[in-house]
């Protein structure tokens, strides 16, 4: 069966994402180098021994990108989980309880949306302090509103359907309806949003890392790698372009997967 899930571009997206995930799970499989301690001359151009060249203190950039995947992907995963868990809970509560609870929750969502995402995550970061996990939580807070809105509208559309009324008619409880009907029906759009927010979290985390609020050096993180390269712009293009290309590829892949989930409907 030929669907959007098996198109060549989709397969490429899976491949890119799977590679990045493998990098973060088992970086030692892809490189023998050390991500923290350099063992060669500084600022070597890409070659057979150093695929991405070396950085300003002679560390292999390819190794640092691979080890950086762990911080970047884990951060994005935590960010999405924060948004998914809190946002979905708020959405379900708003959609099922209705009334005052719904009004209050949806106004909170409006407020969260009214602060530009970077400023909101910076405000949370000031509160929590800098660092990988804190940056991830700060980015996650910015996605709560999106999840809450989506899940609430899903709950409302499912709850008003005839089969839910029938389910209540044969004695289902509210919880049973949530688990049997609302949850399965909301899965597809929520999954699409998860993929979309994963991509957006990667970008936002790279930005926070670039500004110096994320993972502290010398631990590699994708945004930080590019920030470190700024002093060598005139001479060493590989320091920015190659890690940059990796970020763009992974973000594009996640965005594309979100796009096909939305397009195809059921998973």
């Amino acid at each position, binding site marked *: 069966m030929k669907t959007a899930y098996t198109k060549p571009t989709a397969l490429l997206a899976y491949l890119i994402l799977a590679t990045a995930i493998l990098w973060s799970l088992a970086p030692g499989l892809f490189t023998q180098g050390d991500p923290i301690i350099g063992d060669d001359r500084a600022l070597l151009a890409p070659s057979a021994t150093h695929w991405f060249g070396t950085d300003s203190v002679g560390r292999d950039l390819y190794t640092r990108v691979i080890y950086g995947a762990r911080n970047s992907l884990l951060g994005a995963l935590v960010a999405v989980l924060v948004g998914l868990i809190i946002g979905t809970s708020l959405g379900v509560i708003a959609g099922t309880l209705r009334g005052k609870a719904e009004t209050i929750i949806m106004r909170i969502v409006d407020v*969260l*949306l009214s602060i*530009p995402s970077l400023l909101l995550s910076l405000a949370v970061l000031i*509160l929590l302090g800098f660092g990988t996990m804190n940056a991830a939580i700060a980015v996650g807070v910015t996605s709560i509103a999106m999840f809450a809105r989506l899940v609430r509208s899903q709950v409302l559309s499912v709850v008003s359907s005839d089969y839910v009324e029938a389910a209540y008619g044969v004695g289902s409880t509210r919880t049973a309806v949530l688990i049997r009907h609302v949850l399965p029906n909301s899965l597809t759009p929520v999954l699409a949003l998860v993929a979309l927010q994963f991509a957006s979290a990667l970008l936002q985390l790279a930005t926070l890392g670039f500004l110096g609020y994320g993972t502290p050096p010398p631990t590699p993180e994708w945004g930080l790698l590019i920030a470190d390269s700024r002093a060598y712009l005139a001479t060493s293009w590989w320091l920015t372009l190659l890690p940059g290309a990796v970020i763009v590829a992974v973000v*594009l892949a996640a965005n594309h997967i979100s796009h096909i989930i939305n397009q195809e409907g059921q998973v």
Partner: protein
Amino acid sequence: MKSTQVLLRVGQAILVLLAAFTLAFILLTALPGDAVTTRYSNPELGLSEAEVSQIRESYGLDQPLIIQYFMTLANFLTGNFGYSVNSGTAVSNLMKSALPGTLTLAFLAFAASIVLAFCIAFASTLPGQGWLRRTVRALPAFMSSIPSFLIGIVLIQMISFQLGWVPVYGASNLQDLILPVLTLAVPISAPLAQVLVRSIDEVYTQPFVQVIRARGASERWIFFHNVLRNAMMPAITIAGVLFGELVSGAVVTEAVFGRAGLGNLTVQAVANRDTPVLLAVVVTAATAYIIINLIVDLLYPVLDPRLCRKANS
């Protein structure tokens, strides 16, 4: 729209704004403890406890939180944003001197992004199904997948260092703006182009386009006179989203290019944990966002008479 509806919508906007202020106050003032004690109780400064508490008093931090909240709120309403913990300067003065740089950048970038988005939207309607059309249509998704700091750095690398078109040092004011404006224009034009392309496609499927075509109008006439005008409506609804991109993008762009402005002020404030400055920036941005969305909501039925008719019938 009836005047009661308008009033209701305005009241709602004010409530959301008040709530946004409260959230920012909780995040930046109530929860972190006070910035003054953290900063001045450092033993290296050699201040006695009495002196620290005197400084706290001068910032109003000796008051209970609820009083601080209402005092800050009252001050914000009169345009007094408090004093920077880091430099002691009035935050309103800091913002006033930072605003022109950011406004110039944001305005030019917004204009550039509209031009860019319209070019992409126009190119996406050109006939043919070849690779060129596919490339143009994939462009917005690609542009929104690039971190904006990377765009800035690559532009500096290519245009300043490789091609030497814009000098790195000693550039004129105008030259200094070119690369930051381009950097900021990309992330804003991406969602705009996405919405435009989608809604142009939608408008093309409507029967009235066939009617105009049957009457003998040229494709170009149809595009500019009929399709584009209808397709622009949905683009207006994402004004709030664009503003958010503009703010986030301005912070990053100013950091990359080392430009003075609100973005740089924000980055400095975060690095120094200067919470009064960040509070002012967050509340200002939220106010602008809420006003923009309010204007869009109120303007939409005026611009699209179909909505008015629907509401009245």
